[in-house]
């Protein structure tokens, strides 16, 4: 019996078809602390959180709050026990307005039991004003970007004033500025004695806010210690089971000719006069604050959205990108930031997802060549380290990071020349991140061009040859490797500094 302990899970088991996601898991969270969970993709972190939040029922084991066993059947009960959760897979209701999404499941009511719309509006405005966010409360979620939505989810979870707040990769879709806001919130929460379970693959964050760390591997708890007894290396080696030497496997590569050139690409209200170029073997980065318009540029470039004016040259040939097909035909592919919406086909198998963008490779002369398909899928999934029972498994049952790897594998099968990756390491564990960086380097070595949009400055700085910085829909600057510093990038990103000529 320990009065200090708020939440304890003991001997939790949970299985899914073909996987034992949790195996005799034990750990405890103290009041007023931030307890960080680390572990590779598919280690079972989210599953444990969903068990605590009542979304899954455990096969065995107990959950104790204030050292008293509780039976959490559903999220409502979890909330009444003072638990709230920010989900890893942003699972929002696209047709819902901002104000309603903030109170869904918890609507304020007037004395007749009616929904109190005035109160909702008032609360929303207060909340948004307090956080300095100027959204229109009536905007529908489907019109927002992932980062907006993630911010709203964070606000919502905090607004419940729960005793236990679970944050499953809350920062995967937001930029540094919002991360700071979040950390400040976390400190406020701690100081009122509530506790936070925090899951993240961003190692630097972990060491900034953790009070205690628990490391997961293959559904088991490897170790659990206060922060003082851990250092980065230990955590990583416990997670991955080996040491990682260098964070960024960047190699010096001799650059070839210009492979992609974009000139004055414009789409009114989204971005304006965007120009950049990439050479063979080069990795360029796009930095910027949330809503800077980086995603929008890449979407238009890839043919997902139209563009009004501007020119695109691929291998020095003027190209008109009408749709995604035309850019895939030109061997340019893009990994979207919104995996759920633009990435996976949830009800189909890993195999079908991987083959989707290169069907003609396996279906020719009138039939499907299943052996070849299986071979390719196996090859690329192994290259990406996808953890799954088999390739017939539905992709929706994979962990978030593994889904991301499958989507990357899909694009690798097409053997692209230009690879645009929008937040490529979102939700990916350090080990796998390293694999992805290595893959990028390898691709660069094969004379491919890479465009990396990322909100994680360290990875941009670590991996890119040049970084373009965008602010409010315009390219405000371009830095070469020797000029990279967090400060200089931020100066352009906030728009305080603008280069005259960006080419």
């Amino acid at each position: 019996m320990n009065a200090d302990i708020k939440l304890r899970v003991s001997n939790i088991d949970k299985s899914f078809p073909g996987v034992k996601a949790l195996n005799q898991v034990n750990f405890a969270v103290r009041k007023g602390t931030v307890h960080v969970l680390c572990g590779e993709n598919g280690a079972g972190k989210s599953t444990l959180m969903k068990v605590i939040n009542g979304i899954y029922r455990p096969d065995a084991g107990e959950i104790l709050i204030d050292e008293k066993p509780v039976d959490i059947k559903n999220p409502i009960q979890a909330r009444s026990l003072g638990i709230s959760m920010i989900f890893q897979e942003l699972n929002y209701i696209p047709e819902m307005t901002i104000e309603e999404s903030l109170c869904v499941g918890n609507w304020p009511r007037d004395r007749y039991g009616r929904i109190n719309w005035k109160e909702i509006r008032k609360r929303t405005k207060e909340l948004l004003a307090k956080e300095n966010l100027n959204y229109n409360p009536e905007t529908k979620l489907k019109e927002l970007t992932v980062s907006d939505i993630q911010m709203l989810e964070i606000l919502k979870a905090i607004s419940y004033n729960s005793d236990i707040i679970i944050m499953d990769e809350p920062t995967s879709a937001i930029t540094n500025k919002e991360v700071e806001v979040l950390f400040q919130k976390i400190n406020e929460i701690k100081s009122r004695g509530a506790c936070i379970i925090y899951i993240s693959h961003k190692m630097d964050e972990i060491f900034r806010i953790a009070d205690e760390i628990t490391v997961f591997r293959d559904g088991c708890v490897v170790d659990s210690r206060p922060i003082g007894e851990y250092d980065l290396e230990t955590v990583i080696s416990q997670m991955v089971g080996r040491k990682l030497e260098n964070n960024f496997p960047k190699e010096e590569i001799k650059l070839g000719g210009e492979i992609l050139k974009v000139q004055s690409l414009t789409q009114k209200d989204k971005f304006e006069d965007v120009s950049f170029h990439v050479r063979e073997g080069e990795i360029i980065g796009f930095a910027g604050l949330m809503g800077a318009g980086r995603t929008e540029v890449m979407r238009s470039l890839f043919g997902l959205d139209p563009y009004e004016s501007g020119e695109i040259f691929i291998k020095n040939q003027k190209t008109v990108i009408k749709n995604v097909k035309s850019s895939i035909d030109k061997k340019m592919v893009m990994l979207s930031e919104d995996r759920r919406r633009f990435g996976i086909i949830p009800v189909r198998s890993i195999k079908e997802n991987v083959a989707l963008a290169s069907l003609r490779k396996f279906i020719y002369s009138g039939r499907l060549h299943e052996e070849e398909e299986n071979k390719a899928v196996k090859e690329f999934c192994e290259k990406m380290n996808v953890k799954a029972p088999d390739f017939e498994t539905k992709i929706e049952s994979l962990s978030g990071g593994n889904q991301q790897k499958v989507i990357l594998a899909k694009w690798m099968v097409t053997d692209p020349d230009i690879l645009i990756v929008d937040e490529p390491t979102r939700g990916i564990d350090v080990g796998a991140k390293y694999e992805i960086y290595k893959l990028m380097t390898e691709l660069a070595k094969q004379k491919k061009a890479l465009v990396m949009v990322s909100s994680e400055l360290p990875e941009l700085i670590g991996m890119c040859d040049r970084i373009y910085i965008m602010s409010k829909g315009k390219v405000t600057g371009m830095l070469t490797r020797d000029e990279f510093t967090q400060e200089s990038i931020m100066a352009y990103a906030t728009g305080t500094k603008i280069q005259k000529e960006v080419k």
Partner: protein
Amino acid sequence: MFANIKSKYSIYFVLVALFIFCWLANKNFVSVANLQNISTQISVGTILAFGQTILIISGMLDLSSASVLALAGVLSISSYTATGSLTISFIVAVLVGVGCNVLNGLMVTKYKTPPFIATLAMMAMARGAALLYTNGQNIYQIGDYVKFGQGKILGIPTPMIFLVGTLIVTWYLLRHTVFGRSIYAIGGNEEAANASGINVNRIKMRAFIINGILVGIAGVLFMSRVNGGMPNGAIGYEFKALTAAVIGGTSFSGGIGTASGTLAGAFIVGFLDNIMVLVGVNSYLQQIVRGAIIALAVIYDIWAKTMRKKR
């Protein structure tokens, strides 16, 4: 601003445009009697459509509504002839409607049957039960029972009163209650709704129960309007109801729809049918025109909505 209103309320514009067109096309169209006729004529289908709206918003639908209507109607009538009490007969209809829909709800929530299949099964079962109970024979001489559907209160035909009543209830439920907002959340994204602490199964069950009440009321109205207990009556009404809801902007992908939109959808079809009869269009041609206008109305509605986005 105006463009915004026009696009948000585009289906009502279609309705108004159609109304004006009908007015110009035939002088008998705008008369109290004719408009009353149209309203009473669409009442049964529209009451069913309100139930469908609630279900479709929450990502389900009810194929059994017309069959359950028939079962509720014949049982209601035979309870009337047995007891002579209008109140009891009304309650019987509602109970039968609710009972069948509780079964629908159980199949959907407890056994995870897709609503299409669950209500399809109920469609066959309820119709079979209605026919079996009556041995396929219509029940005539229903006496005062006709008051439900053929009476007037303060000069207003009772079906119109039922129509307005159910409209208000549906609107209120959808707009002002936790139940209503939960339905939108469930239809919009069931997992997210569950994660937000909405008891999905309970809300779905309630949606079916409310649908059951509406179906029961529609059953009373229908049987009273056709002046007899017709176990084989109202065939195809579930479809009419779905059509009105969908024309009115309710989306099968869930999470979208309003009671007033459904009413507008029902009136669009009602006006169309009425004007074609008034003008005397060949009845085969009527079907073609009806199909074409429904498609055009929806195409315009969608176009107007995307226009707003594009701006």
